[in-house]
C-alpha cells in the first residue's frame, strides 16, 4: 500500500468517525419533538438522562433500568449523561425539554436539596413517575477507633464540642445534611469535613485522618465487612440487611432517618396517558432480577413508590431539607 493511499484511508476513517459521533449526538434529539403524544405513545426513541457522569451509581441505575424499560415499552431507550454542578445542569436541562414522555431522567436526592443552595432547581418543574431505589445513610469509625457505639461518639462530642471530625462527600451533599441531622438529634457539635465525593471521604476514615464518616451504606458496608471500618449506626427505621447486627440510630435513641434515593422524572405537564404508560413500565422494570441484583450488590435497597407516592415523598423530603439546610 502506497503512503498516499494510507493517508487517504486514515483521513477517510477520521472523517467517518467524526460524522458518526456527530450523527449519534443528533439522533438522540431529532424526531421526539414532532410526535404528537397520545395513545400511540411510545413510538420513538426515549432518552433517559442522568445528571451524573458515566460510570457512577446513578448512571448504572439508569443504564440497567433503561434496558428493562426498552423491553417493556418496545422502543429504544438511550441513556445520556448531563453531569455538572451537583447535577443542577442536567436537572435544568430536563426542565427545559418537551413534556412528551420522550425525555425522562433518573434524578437523585439532590433534586429536593439544590433549591436551598442557590441553584436554579425546583421540584415543581417535574412530574415524578416513581421512586426506584434508596440508599440508607450510615455513620462509621476507623477500625481502631475508641468509639464502640454511637453513644461513645456522642459523649465525646458533648465533652469537647467541635473536636470530633466527620468526613462527608462534600459541602451541601446529602451526607453533609446527615451530619447536621445527627448533630441536631443528639444536640451536639460535630466538625464536618467535606471531601470531593463519597470514596475519598470513606478513605479518610479508613486511614484514620478523621474520627468518623457519614456515608451511604453502599460505601461503608464493604469496609465494615472486612474490618477496615466499624459502622456504629444506620440511619433508617428498620435495620439494614446489608449490615447485620448493626443497630439503627433510632434504636440507640437518636431520631435520625436520612438517606439518598433516586426517582424517575419528566418535565412537568406530561399528558395523563403518557404518564400512566411510563409509570407502569417503571413499576415493572424495578422488579427485574438484573436491576435488583445491581442495586443490592451495592448494599442498597430497591424501594419502589408509584408516581403519586413518589411526588408526595419528594415534597416531604424537600420540606425537611428546607429546615435542615437552613441551619
Amino acid at each position, binding site marked *: 500500500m502506497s503512503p498516499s493511499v494510507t493517508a487517504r484511508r486514515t*483521513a477517510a476513517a477520521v472523517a467517518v468517525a467524526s460524522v458518526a*459521533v456527530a450523527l449519534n449526538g443528533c439522533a438522540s434529539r431529532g424526531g421526539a419533538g414532532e410526535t404528537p403524544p397520545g395513545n400511540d405513545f411510545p413510538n420513538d426513541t426515549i432518552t433517559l438522562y442522568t445528571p451524573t457522569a458515566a460510570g457512577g451509581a446513578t448512571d448504572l441505575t439508569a443504564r440497567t433500568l433503561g434496558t428493562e424499560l426498552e423491553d417493556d415499552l418496545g422502543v429504544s431507550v438511550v*441513556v445520556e449523561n448531563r453531569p*455538572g454542578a451537583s447535577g443542577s445542569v442536567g436537572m435544568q436541562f430536563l426542565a427545559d425539554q418537551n413534556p412528551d414522555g420522550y425525555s425522562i431522567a433518573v434524578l437523585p436526592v439532590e433534586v429536593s436539596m439544590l433549591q436551598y443552595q442557590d441553584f436554579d432547581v425546583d421540584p415543581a418543574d417535574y412530574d415524578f413517575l416513581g421512586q426506584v431505589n434508596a440508599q440508607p445513610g450510615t455513620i462509621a469509625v476507623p477500625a481502631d477507633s475508641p468509639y464502640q457505639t454511637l453513644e461513645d461518639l456522642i459523649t465525646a462530642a458533648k465533652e469537647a464540642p467541635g473536636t470530633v471530625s466527620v468526613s462527608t462527600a462534600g459541602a451541601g451533599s446529602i451526607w453533609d445534611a446527615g451530619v447536621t441531622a445527627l448533630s441536631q438529634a443528639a444536640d451536639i457539635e460535630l466538625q464536618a469535613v467535606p471531601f*470531593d465525593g463519597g470514596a475519598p471521604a470513606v478513605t479518610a476514615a479508613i486511614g484514620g485522618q478523621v474520627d468518623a464518616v457519614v456515608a451511604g451504606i453502599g460505601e461503608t458496608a464493604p*469496609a465494615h465487612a472486612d474490618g*477496615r471500618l466499624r459502622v456504629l449506626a444506620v440511619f433508617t427505621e428498620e435495620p439494614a440487611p446489608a449490615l447485620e447486627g448493626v443497630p439503627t440510630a433510632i434504636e440507640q435513641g437518636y431520631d435520625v432517618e436520612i438517606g439518598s434515593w433516586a426517582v424517575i422524572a419528566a418535565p412537568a405537564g406530561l399528558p395523563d396517558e403518557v404518564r400512566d404508560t411510563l409509570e407502569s413500565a417503571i413499576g415493572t422494570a424495578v422488579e427485574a432480577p438484573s436491576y435488583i441484583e445491581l442495586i443490592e450488590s451495592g448494599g442498597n435497597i430497591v424501594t419502589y413508590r408509584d408516581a403519586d407516592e413518589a411526588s408526595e415523598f419528594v415534597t416531604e423530603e424537600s420540606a425537611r431539607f428546607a429546615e435542615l439546610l437552613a441551619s
Partner: protein
Amino acid sequence: MNALAEGLGALADPYIGVCLVIGVLLGSLVGAVPGVTATMAVALAAGFTLTLDPLPGLAVLLSIYVAAQFGDRVPSILINTPGTPASIATTFDGYPMAKQGKAGIALTSSALVSAIGSLTGILILVFLAQPLAGFALQFGPIELFCLVVFGLTMMVGVSGGRIVKGLGAGLFGLLLGVVGRDPITGDQRFTLGFDELASGVPFIAAIIGLFGIAEVTNQLVSARPGRVPQPISQLGRWWPNRAETRSLVKPTMIGCAVGSVVGVVPAAGGDIAGVVAWDQARRTSQTPERFGKGALEGVAAPDSASCATMGGSLTTTLAVGVPGDSVMAVMLGSMVVWGLQPGPALFVTNPDLVYSLAGLMTLATLLALALALMRMRGVIKLLALPPRYLAVVVVTFCMVGTFAVQNSVFDVALMWVFGLLGLLMRRFGFPPGPLVLGLILGPLAESNLRRALLIDGGDALFSSPIGMTLIALSLLAVTVQPLRSSMKGRRSRERTPTPVV
C-alpha cells in the same frame, strides 16, 4: 505459586484475547482523540462489560485504560494537543521535536518508554501491593497538600526560562482554580451566574483550548499567503540511535520512580506524575536548558511516568479498596457489581485475580506497544494534509471531544475562550504550562489544606512526617535550583536564548 499459575492460566481463553484486542483498539482510538479521556471510555464501556463475566469484562476495561495512555501521545507530539490530561507534559518537548522534523523518533521513543513505565507499574502491583497499601492510606489531606505544594514548585521549570511570565501565568491558573463552589462551605465564587462553573472551570475544555485551539489559530494567524508552513510530515528517523537510547535511560528511570509513587497516592494520576517527572528529569539533567525545546529526555520522563502510575493506581485500588485515580473509580464500581470487593481481603480470598489482572495489563501493554509502533506511519500521514484542511480536522476533533465530556455546549464555548486566551498568551510569550499546573493543583491545594485545618487546626503540618519531608523537598527545589542555574549561567553567558514553542 499456585495462585500465580491459576491466575495466569485463566487468561489462556481465546475469548479473553478477543476482549483484549477490542479494548486495545478502542483505547488507542479514544486516547488519540483530544477530550475523549480514558475515564470516559472506561465509564461508557463499563455499562456494556457488566453483562460479561468478570475476567473478560476486566480485560476490556484494563486494555482501554492501558492503550489510551499510548494513543494520547500522538496528538500531543503532532498537534500540541494532549489526547488525555496524562500527556500534558508530553507536549513540552514532543511538539518542539515534531517541529524540528523529529516526530518519528519522538513517537517511537514515547511508545517504548511508555511500555517500560507500564511494566514497572505492574511489577510494583505484583510484588509490593500489600506493603504499599499502608503507605497509600497515610496520605490524608495534609500529606496531599504538601505533595501539591511540591508540585507547585515545578512552575519555575515549566516556565521554560521565562520565569516572570511563567509565574504570572501560573498565578492566573491558581486564580482560575478558585472559580466554582467553595469546597468547604459550598458558597459560589466567581461563577458569574453560570451554574456550569459551579464545579470549577471544566478542565478538559481548558486544556484543549489552551493547547489545541491556540496552536491551530496561531498557525492560521501566522500563515502568510505564498509561504506554506513546513509540514510535520518530515518525520526523520524512526529508531533512536545508540547515543539517543543511552540518553533515554536516566529520564525513564526517573519517570518510572515518580510514576510509581504518584500512582500509589490516591486521587493523584498521570497528569501530575508526567509534569513532576518532566521537571525532575530537567533538574537532574546536565543540560536542563534543552528541556522544552525538543529534548528527547523531556518526552521519555513524562511518558514513562504517566504509564507507571497505572500499576500504582491499580495497587491502591486492589489493596486498599480506594480508587487510585478516576479510571479506577469507575472500575471499582464494576468490580463491586461483579462481587469482587477490592480491599486487603482480596489478596487472601482471590490472590489469583491479582495475578490475572497483572497478566492482563502486561498483555495489554505489549499489544498497545505493537499497535503504536505499527500504526505510526499511517497516523502521521494525516499531517501531510494541507494545513488549512488539517486545521479543520483538528478543530472538529477538539469541539466534538470537548462536547462529549459532559454533552455540554457551554464547555465548547469555554474551549474557544481558552483558545483565544492561549493564542494571546502565545503571541505575548506567556507559556501555557504553568497556567495548566495552577489549574490542576490550585483546587487540590486549597481543599486539602482547609480540610487539614478543619481536622487538626494549625498543628496539622507539624504532626505529619511525610508532610514535613515534602515541604523540605519543596524548599530545596526552590532554593537550590536558582543557585545552580545562576552558576551555570555565569559559565555559559554567551549562550543565546532560543524562543520556545
